[in-house]
Each structure stands twice: as structure tokens, then as C-alpha cells.
């Protein structure tokens, strides 16, 4: 199995928020996370970003 760089890892983590990763991709991520604290943090922080943005004020609606 190919080992991911941190750049590839963060790219996949981001895509994982937008599409379903395949089995190979998920395994490659898990392996990378085992030894990379930076990517574990970045991954948690991207998920946090999603929660934070969802809490921003609602976009103005056309009606009401």
C-alpha cells in the first residue's frame, strides 16, 4: 500500500467531507493518522470548521 504524504492526507480528509471515500482511501488515512499528529489535528480542525460555519447566521431567504 502506498503511504500518503501529509498533503495527500489533508486532501483526502477534505474530500471525505464531500464524498464517500473508498475502502483503500480510508485505510490509507487510518495508517497515516497512526504516526502523524499534525494530520490528526488538521482533520479534527476541518470537521470543527464545518460545525462553526453551520452556526453562522442563516443566509437571507427570498420569502418571509
Amino acid at each position, binding site marked *: 500500500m502506498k503511504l500518503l504524504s501529509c*498533503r495527500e492526507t489533508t486532501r483526502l480528509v477534505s474530500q471525505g467531507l464531500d*464524498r464517500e471515500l473508498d475502502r483503500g482511501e480510508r485505510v490509507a488515512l487510518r495508517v497515516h493518522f497512526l504516526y502523524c499528529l499534525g494530520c490528526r*489535528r488538521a482533520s479534527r480542525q476541518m470537521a470543527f470548521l464545518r460545525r*462553526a460555519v453551520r*452556526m453562522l447566521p442563516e443566509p437571507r431567504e427570498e420569502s418571509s
Partner: protein
Amino acid sequence: MASQDDFRKQIEALRPYLLRFASLQLRDAAAAEDAVQEALVAALAGETSFAGRANLRTWLTGILKHKIVDTIRRQSREPTVAAEADEEGAEIDELFTERGHWAERPAAWGDPDDALEQSQFFRALEMCLERLPVRTARVFMMREHLGAETDEICKELDLTPTHCWVLLYRARMTLRECLQQTWFAK
């Protein structure tokens, strides 16, 4: 000269049609815009060659087709990996070494959810969002704020899924870095 102005106006009126045509072919709004621009410049330069032909739209579409083929050729010559890295932009390049390791390891954010209790945090977040390039921000907000699916966004903005993912990745990484500097490091 009045007739030249007329010619220009007629050509401009066809721009939306040409853009749609180019977007369908290229599936990339920026590339489509460029191809149409090149075609219009070529058309205006070659006005005389139009003289006597029946249909302006057909003539322009013909020129545009050549430009589209040029674009596709140009794109297919570029190696995909380089193009992808390139598209991710300088902000992303700066975060990593050439071999793809972190240039600087992301710092811990403690319990970031504490920030969600503070209105000042949301001001920092909005400031970071404002710094994103327009199209990157639009894709990101459609995805994360409106909760749209990636394929809806692609269709709406005429982007390939890959391009969408690149923009979303760039947005997340840039925002992460911006929040690190403007909020979590303080």
C-alpha cells in the same frame, strides 16, 4: 464607424450563448470564459472575413470551436498531478514542503467548541471567509453553509467534481490557517 460598432454589439449579444457552448464542452467556467474571450478577439480582428456570410452565430461558433480544441489540447499536455497541485494554489504550497510534509505542524486547538460560545469567534471566522478568493468562497459557502451536495454545486457553477474538491480543500486549509493565526494562537 457605426457599422463597426454594430458589429461589436452583435458579437457581444452572442456572448452568453457562446459561454454556454464553451462551458458545455470544457466543464470549467474559467477556461470557457477564456476561450470565448479569445474567440471574440479573433472575430473582431477578422471582421472582413465575415463579410457576406449568412449567419453571425454560426461563424462565431466556428471560431470558438477552434479555441475550445486549443484549450483541450493545452490541458491534456499538462500532467494531471502538476495541474492539480498548481490549482490548489500558492497558499497550499506554502503549508507543505516539496515532499508533501507539513512545513509547520498544525498546533492543537484545545477544545475548539469553546470558541463556538463566543460571538467574537464568529467575527474572526467571517473575516477569514472574506479573505478567500470569490469563487473559492462561493463553493465553500454553498457546501458548508447552505449544505448543498457537491454535485449540485458543480452543476450550478459549471465545475467538474475534481475542481470543486480542489476549491473546497483550498478553502478549508486556508480558513484553518487563518483561524490558527487570528484566533487560536492568541
